[in-house]
């Protein structure tokens, strides 16, 4: 099973030299047309893309405005989840995550350090 999951960064600040997106119950599964896509208002210079993790090297306190889209794959019975680390803003909502469900796209706030289960995710 596969779907695109998009994290939209909303002016969070990096609290470390590395901002991490970690996946559980799924992996980034590129195809010939999609895999991982990053778009940022401020240019980046260093990134590591693992099967289960994306690490963005950045300056401490750097602002994150932009998006990260990942084509993820999982097997039936697995429950994909995503965790965002080392980024914050005053409202504790430095990003949102969007994923497809049978009832349309689901969007939830991604709070730093808290794994968010992508409930109801379906193949897209």
């Amino acid at each position, binding site marked *: 099973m596969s779907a695109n999951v998009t994290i939209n960064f909303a002016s969070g600040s990096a609290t470390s030299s590395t901002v991490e997106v970690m996946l559980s119950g799924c992996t980034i599964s590129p195809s010939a*047309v999609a*895999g991982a896509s990053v778009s940022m208002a401020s240019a980046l210079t260093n*990134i590591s893309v693992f099967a289960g993790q994306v690490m963005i090297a950045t300056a401490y306190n750097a602002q994150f405005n932009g998006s990260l889209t990942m084509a993820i794959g999982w097997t039936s019975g697995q429950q994909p989840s995503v965790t965002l680390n080392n980024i914050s803003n005053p409202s504790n909502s430095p990003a949102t995550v969007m994923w497809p469900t049978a009832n349309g796209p689901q969007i939830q706030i991604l709070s730093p350090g808290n794994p968010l289960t992508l409930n109801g995710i379906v193949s897209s």
Partner: protein
Amino acid sequence: MSGSSTTNPTGSIIITYAPGAQFTSTNSTIVVGGNGAFLLQNSAPLLFAGTITFAQLSISTVQIMISNTSSTTPVNGAITIPVTVKSGNVPTITATNFSGAVEVQWPTPNGQQTQTLSPSDTFYLNNFGS
């Protein structure tokens, strides 16, 4: 018992941009061919190290596209790309829209091979695989 199994060669290609190199367009691509494909693993990531500036980055199994707002962007660093290829094939790499000294390095059974990479030339990674 009879029969045999084949293993698809895998390894990491390293493209190194020396000081003075530039992306010469808003889009620069790295394409793998020859029945090769990028392979993401937890033990071998796709890695941008040094100063590989990008405003947008898109990755599929066969292409990496690095996009910037300027048509000339200095680049000085290395991109490490895990690759697999179907057994019996020679993977190729084609990189576009750059200038300056750029090298491609890949593993062979006889050690690392390093060659100069020219823009838009399809480069054969002979004897690929460690």
